């Protein structure tokens, strides 16, 4: 069984009070993962579907095709929720990846080359509430840094991540503090590799 503390917004009476609750979308996705909550899934649809459609239109898709991809992405979120690891990704990062995978598969009609999977299929790992919260806080700091950019800098970031710039047009320096969130994810990966070793 997974720990349930990690996705409740209110601190449990006997638990350490959380400094701040997790991001709303991550809470909803954990509710889908752990409780198969249709209500939470409906809220995720309301939040992400219009944004995903916006992203796919910017990548050059027609409206009908974009909605086909949105539908597939939302169904993947429901079906693959058990693979969501909140110590490694916030909901939006995980969904961004799924959407990019589907988008590329659709446009190129062949599967996007993917890194080897690191998911232990049988035994879902147990969320560590501290790790989950720490990653979430880094995500919040990243959003704050993004909000401080000038409109011009901001526009370039949007173009790059929405898929409007080719590789040669992307300049290496974003100036955003990605180092700390990267270190958090690195720790989660090391722990996962350690757990996978134990399973063998």
């Amino acid at each position, binding site marked *: 069984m997974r720990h349930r503390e990690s996705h409740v917004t209110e601190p449990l009476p006997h638990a350490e009070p959380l400094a701040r609750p997790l991001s709303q*979308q991550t809470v909803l996705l954990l509710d889908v993962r752990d409780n198969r909550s*249709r209500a939470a*899934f*409906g809220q995720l*649809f*309301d939040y992400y*579907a*219009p944004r*995903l*459609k*916006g*992203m796919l*239109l910017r*990548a050059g898709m027609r409206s009908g095709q*974009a*909605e086909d991809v*949105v*539908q597939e992405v939302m*169904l993947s979120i*429901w*079906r693959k929720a058990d693979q969501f690891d909140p110590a*490694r*990704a916030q*909901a*939006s*990062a*995980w*969904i*961004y990846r799924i*959407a*990019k995978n589907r988008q590329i598969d659709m446009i190129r009609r062949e*599967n*996007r*080359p*993917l*890194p*080897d*999977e690191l998911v232990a299929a049988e035994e879902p790992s147990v969320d560590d509430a501290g790790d989950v919260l720490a990653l979430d806080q880094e*995500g919040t700091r*990243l*959003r704050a840094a*993004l909000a401080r950019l000038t409109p011009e800098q901001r526009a370039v970031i*949007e173009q*790059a*991540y*929405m*898929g409007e710039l*080719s*590789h040669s047009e*992307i300049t*290496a320096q*974003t100036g*955003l503090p*990605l180092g700390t969130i*990267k*270190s958090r*994810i*690195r720790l989660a*990966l090391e722990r996962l*590799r350690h757990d996978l070793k134990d399973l063998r």
Partner: protein
Amino acid sequence: MTEIQHHLTEDLIVAYAAGTLGHAFSVVVAAHFSLCDECRSQLEAHEHLGGAVLEDLTQETVSVGLKSAVLAGIDLPAPPEPTRITRSGIYPSAIMTALKGRPPKWKPVGGGIRQCIIEQGAEGSLRLLYIPPGRAVPDHGHGGLELTLVLQGSFHDASGAFKAGDVEVATEDVQHVPIAGEGMACICLAASDAPLRFRGWLPRLLQPMFRI
């Protein structure tokens, strides 16, 4: 996991995350992520930035029926997931998938060097190279970007020594003569966005024949 010395550049990681990197380069990059947790965690950090941008994006109205179609869809049995081709020996999943699950078919290109062309087209080329210990690949420049990922053994050239897991990012101005290290034969995966051009007239004449 051995300590990896030569990593991907950030622009390649961002282009992969955003889905704008060509297929041949994406195979090399995904294979490197499989071997390098440092670059994999950097990729996932960039995906957080992608997710943050997605949250702030202008929302587009979706069709009235889309939500009910999705909600109806979750009650249907999920279609079987196409089985992913997994790693085999020194070849990560991304390479095995590009090889369609079959072991590489090596063709000799002279000097004991062998290659297996995986794809070649307008977008560029992707191939595996097998270089016996101590052998040099003829001096060659290339039209654009070339990525070389070492899967077994090692090679060195003017820009340094590359061991298993290391990736060399070479731009068009680099003229290099990769020499395989001693010990195991060097097997590497190379992608470029232009056909390779060898220096000197003889190799250039041979080039169409061998498709080097």
